[in-house]
């Protein structure tokens, strides 16, 4: 199995605070890898390090065979990494259509027309400003924007945050669809149970270090661990 992304021994700091203590993980090509953990475990920092937004001081990141450890963010994205940040970060003053014009045109199956077919709601609201959208629509827009890069690897940071259960299911179905399209996925979630239903592999992060790595199925079977993960999460749903 080839890996889309591998990180070895990442140490990341915010100023003097040491946040990641040697995080290593791997995202296998064509699979969904879930990165779970409680609030403040270092999940978002891990993703920011992988994207070059907060560069790791130590460690090595390889994405599709290239050492990207010191690459600037835009180059990592242009290498085929779509990133859906925490809190969606859509451009609030720009229309939906304008939001979709921001990503680099890398060439590939995803075009704005195809995005509108996948997300008809965005097509209906294409003249609306980002700030006028509901949370679910903003999440769709954030995913759509990342897809327009035609990524080979999609990194999602808490896509279910603050969304109604019905919308969360929709988001997770789209993530599964991306896998079916051959896109590798790294999914950070607090919603452990639901993530494990769609993930192939899983990592658990605690206090800036990996405390579990294995298949999602094994982790899902470990009821006590899953319950401990869910401890900090207010709501838990299943796909069915």
């Amino acid at each position, binding site marked *: 199995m080839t890996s889309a992304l591998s990180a070895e021994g990442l140490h990341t700091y915010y100023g003097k605070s040491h946040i990641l203590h040697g995080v290593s993980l791997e995202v296998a090509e064509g699979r969904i890898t879930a990165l779970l953990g409680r609030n403040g475990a270092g999940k978002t920092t891990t993703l920011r390090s992988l994207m070059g937004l907060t560069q790791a001081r130590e460690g090595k990141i390889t994405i599709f065979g290239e050492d990207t450890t010191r690459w600037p963010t835009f180059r990592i994205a242009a290498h085929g990494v779509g990133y859906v940040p925490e809190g969606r970060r859509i451009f609030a003053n720009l229309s939906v259509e304008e939001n979709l014009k921001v*990503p680099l045109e890398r060439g590939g199956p995803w075009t704005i027309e195809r995005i509108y077919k996948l997300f008809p709601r965005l097509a209906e609201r294409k003249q609306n400003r980002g700030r006028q959208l509901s949370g679910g629509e903003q999440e769709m827009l954030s995913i759509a924007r990342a897809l327009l890069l035609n990524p080979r690897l999609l990194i999602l940071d808490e896509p279910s945050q603050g969304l109604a259960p019905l919308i969360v299911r929709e988001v997770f179905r789209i993530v599964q669809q991306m896998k079916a399209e051959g896109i590798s996925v790294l999914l950070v979630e607090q919603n452990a149970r639901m993530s494990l239903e769609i993930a192939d592999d899983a990592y658990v992060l605690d206090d800036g270090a990996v405390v579990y790595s294995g298949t999602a199925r094994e982790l899902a079977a470990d009821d006590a661990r899953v319950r401990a993960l869910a401890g900090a999460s207010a709501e838990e749903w299943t796909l069915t």
Partner: protein
Amino acid sequence: MMTQLLLFNVTNGLIIGAFYVLMALGLSLILNLSNVINFAHGGFLVIGGYIAYTITPYIGFWGALLLAPPLTAIIGLAVERVLIRPLYGRDPLYSLLLTFGLAFMIEDGTRFIWGPQGKPVTIPAFLAQPLSNDLFFITGYRLFMVVVVMIAVALLFLLLRYTRLGVRIRAGTLDLETVAALGINVGMLRSLNFAVGIFLAGLSGVLAAGQLGLEPTMGTGLLMPSFIAIIVGGIGSLPGTLIGGLLIGVASGVTAVFFPAASEAVIYVMMAVILLTRPRGLFGEEGMMS
């Protein structure tokens, strides 16, 4: 007589306002995307004017009008790459001090190259004629300047609204990090945006040279009102900057009729009043084109 005087000064104000608008839009673009308060902007206006002065004998006024702004933009690009780029991400005070010093260097540099005396720039004869006897104060050139400014402003707004570059610049003013995460080279985006801003300064320089003649210090006089245009219009809003520029131009023109001594002070008073009643400026809100 009074009506004509008033009309004369309102027209004058509008023309000066058009200069403020061109300058202030460039300043605003650079401030919004890169957080750089470009004190050297007036210097780039001077560079544009002197380039036009130098090349006019060879390619004529029209050639200079077309060529001087892009040449100024290229100089601006070099300055951005070498001097300003290393300061991105630092306290805006650094770039403010740098451009402040740069303004002096440009002023002395032009004095060194072209001499301290003012230089006249020849404009085509037909543009120098007044429109009519009644409207003796409106020359063809003044009207021409306003039309050029209007075209430049319209093109800028079209660029920002309908091209990917423009949309990315606007997105960058809201969240540069996310723009980078979408594969856009934000260093390049900042450079292009800076070049567009300096292009507008260069264009103002050519236009101003034809109207006022050239002096190494001419940029300084236009810079402060341009900053005030941005503040009055609301930082972050380009339409606000546009209206702010015209407003302070006209206010200063009208005051010149009734109370000439206060014609300069009035724009500062206006700024104070607007900031007291609406601290974000007339159209100020997050992001531009709002």
